[in-house]
């Protein structure tokens, strides 16, 4: 009896907690509302299954608990029932998987009009690079990282000269413009994560990873590191500021390029030529 009641209370309690919980996702600030929807579908399906199974167990415990003289049924198997259950499960799984794969397809197809923004992770801070006037990021290589070249930009790649370097905690982005985040690390694994954008991706030294999104709400959002990167991992914070186009342009005008900041030797020789 007690067991059955507790099992029912677990179901009821979990459902009530779910709806009353003050802990829930942050208000979204990107186009990935689809992801939230998939989560909601998944919550409904899995919640129903959880409640059904546990309530069924509670019923069995209440109804079939041992009493004197009681004897269990002898029922080795029931193919029909098993097939039905298997079929229903497959349908439920498909109902979650299909929208999920569909959204994943969108998540990995970057729209052609997306602009690029690079994030460089290094223990334990973020830095950013924008492609500058030519719209192209210069090549980079970890082996070139030095005090006068913290991003490891290839000095002889002309695309890099006008790249805008933002050696600050905050990156600004214009609202409603899709952006492809290119992620790079010069030392170890990190993960660029903004809860309000519902997206994250690891950064790997020696590789460039990416994800894309469209900011849909102005404001300031915290960047967290979501991959263990040594003892400073929880302190690796930054931010993304989503601006209106005017604010963004004003901010961008105040930033400096690679050439302005580090004036690499190659550039000087190039000027003399």
């Amino acid at each position, binding site marked *: 009896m007690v*067991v059955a009641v*507790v099992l029912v209370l677990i179901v009821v309690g979990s459902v009530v907690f779910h709806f009353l919980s*003050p*802990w*829930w*996702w*942050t208000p979204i600030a990107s186009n990935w509302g689809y992801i939230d929807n*998939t989560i909601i579908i998944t919550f409904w*399906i*899995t919640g129903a299954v*959880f409640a059904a*199974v*546990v309530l*069924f167990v509670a019923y069995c*415990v209440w109804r079939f608990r041992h009493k004197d003289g009681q*004897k269990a*049924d*002898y*029922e*080795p*198997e*029931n193919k029909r029932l*098993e097939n039905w*259950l298997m079929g229903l*499960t*497959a349908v439920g*799984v498909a109902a*979650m*998987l299909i929208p*999920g*794969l569909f*959204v*994943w397809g969108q*998540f990995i197809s970057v729209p052609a009009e997306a602009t690029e923004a690079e994030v460089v992770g290094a*223990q334990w801070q973020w830095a950013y690079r924008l492609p500058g006037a030519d719209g192209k990021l210069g090549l980079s290589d*970890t*082996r070139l990282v030095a005090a006068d070249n913290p991003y490891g930009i290839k000095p002889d790649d002309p695309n890099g000269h006008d790249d805008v370097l933002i050696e600050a905690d905050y990156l600004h982005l214009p609202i409603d413009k899709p952006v492809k985040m290119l*992620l790079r690390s010069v*030392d*170890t694994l990190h993960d660029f*994560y903004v809860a*309000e954008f519902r*997206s*994250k*991706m*690891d950064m*790997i*030294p*020696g590789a460039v*990873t990416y*994800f894309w999104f469209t900011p849909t709400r102005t404001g300031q*959002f915290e960047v967290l590191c*979501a*991959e*263990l*990167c*040594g*003892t*400073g*991992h929880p302190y690796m914070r930054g931010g993304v500021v989503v601006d209106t186009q005017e604010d963004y342009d004003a901010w961008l005008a105040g930033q400096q390029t690679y050439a302005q900041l580090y004036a690499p030797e190659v550039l000087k020789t190039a000027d003399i030529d």
Partner: protein
Amino acid sequence: MVDATHGPDAHAAEFPDVELYHPRSWWTRYVFSQDAKVIAIQYASTALAIGMLALVLSWLMRMQLAFPGFLTFIDAAAYYQFITMHGMIMVIYLITALFLGGFGNYLIPLMLGARDMVFPYVNMLSYWTYLLAVLVLVASWFTPGGPTGAGWTLYPPQAILSNTPGQESGIVLMLVSLILFVIGFTMGGLNYIVTVLQGRTRGMTLMRMPLTVWGIFIATVMAMLAFPALFVACVMMLFDKLLGTSFFMPALVEMGELLPHDGGSPILFQHLFWFFGHPEVYIVALPAFGIVSDLISTHARKNIFGYRMMVWAIVIIGALSFVVWAHHMYVSGMNPYFGFFFAVTTLIIAVPTAIKVYNWVLTLWRGDIHLNPPMLFALAFIVTFVNGGLTGLFLGNVVVDVPLSDTMFVVAHFHMVMGVAPILVIFGAIYHWYPKITGRMLDNTLAHLHFWVTFLGAYLIFFPMHYLGIMGVPRRYFESGDISFQPPSAHDLNIFITVMALIVGAAQLVFVFNLIWSIRHGKPSGGNPWRATTLEWQTPETPPVHGNFGRELPVVYRWAYDYSVPGAAEDFIPQNQPGTNPPHSEAPKKRRGAKS
């Protein structure tokens, strides 16, 4: 594989009993023993002892999360060391060792009607190698720099770089310990596999084996295929660390200095690790599945529902779990198209897994449910396993994993499904088989106390934790109080979780006390207190002596689940009871007998 016409008397090849190895001294009887039952107890005691350390570490971590700064000796480095050691010990040195080395050794020969494992000497070496692995792991606390704080996943390059505690020698000892563990486990695992295939008594066809043996058997086969990946990953990382190779090390800058490594791939390690790591989840789950099936059937006095389906589900889950590993790497930066493949395979596994759950609960239906401690733990397992399995459908569905991965949602999910659920089965199994091992019952009142606190406490720890993850709180954060989107109430939740964790941990002391106290003071149990059908309960002596079955090995006439057979005098018929009631040699295919 299954031969339905295979009666007990038609056994093809009959070999004379091989003379058993007999211990001659106290040392070879109790310490360097080759008897699988003694080895089982050695494995289990070592695993539980080191598991206590992992439990204490979980207390310390929870203290830090709820009361940062209260325990002044916990700094970030110590926190990461605690996380790493806690996770690794729990997964490998406690649960894997206990299920396979402990229950595997004890139950396989007894349940199959064998006198011992087929290679007793290798079996003994397996335990001592495991013990050495544990000692090497513990030794890292006493080296300069202490144990590694790389996280239990040991991802390079960070695992061998500065800013990770234990960079001096902790990481090396961890890798060496894992290598030793794999070696020791391989010795034991070969034994379990060959014993299941070759050591069964007359009449014990594969399709008459109890599901416990099926679960342990398939888990062992999986471990033999998965652990080599961990083994090579450890060796390669040792080379990177000690010899300066670059398997996993790309060109990178450490503290402003370009390291001599170049060209390696950190992702390669992740593939190797999870090629082991995902099957590992099932290596601990399948024995739990098997054991819980037998607990439910015995204590509900009813045959397990859909035995053949249960066997096939175990086999299929075992096979599929080798093609899902990269669901741990959806946001690792691997080729994003892999996501489609791994999401599909991962969600397909949900189907055979769900079948198992249905069959457990359908076994309860029209049963005669005795709420003994093993049954209570089995019910608790169903609740926590279903909960944790369902949250797996979030994380397996690639795009849903994007916001949730590396958050507290993941921590809550895997604790529920591979921490709490298997541990509940371990408890149930100990309450179930303790009478066979010691000849005495565990105290029932203490068992109930232990059960309620552990089950409800663990649920209260991990259920609300999911919601912190949905909010976006990352895992492996030494401090998380200042995250911008976290309301102050989240801290209250953290305090609540910590208090529950302390209580649940304390309840385990009740259990340990019960284990020790009942060896002398428990009620004598007799040979078959649960009136169970399987062979280990039919031994002439309890506890079973060397050689297990006296002069004659038992002969098996029926499957393991003849409970409440219509027309039978008792509500169970042991597997070795001859007779044609019921007249089947394999798992019966159809429902027979009218409803009662």
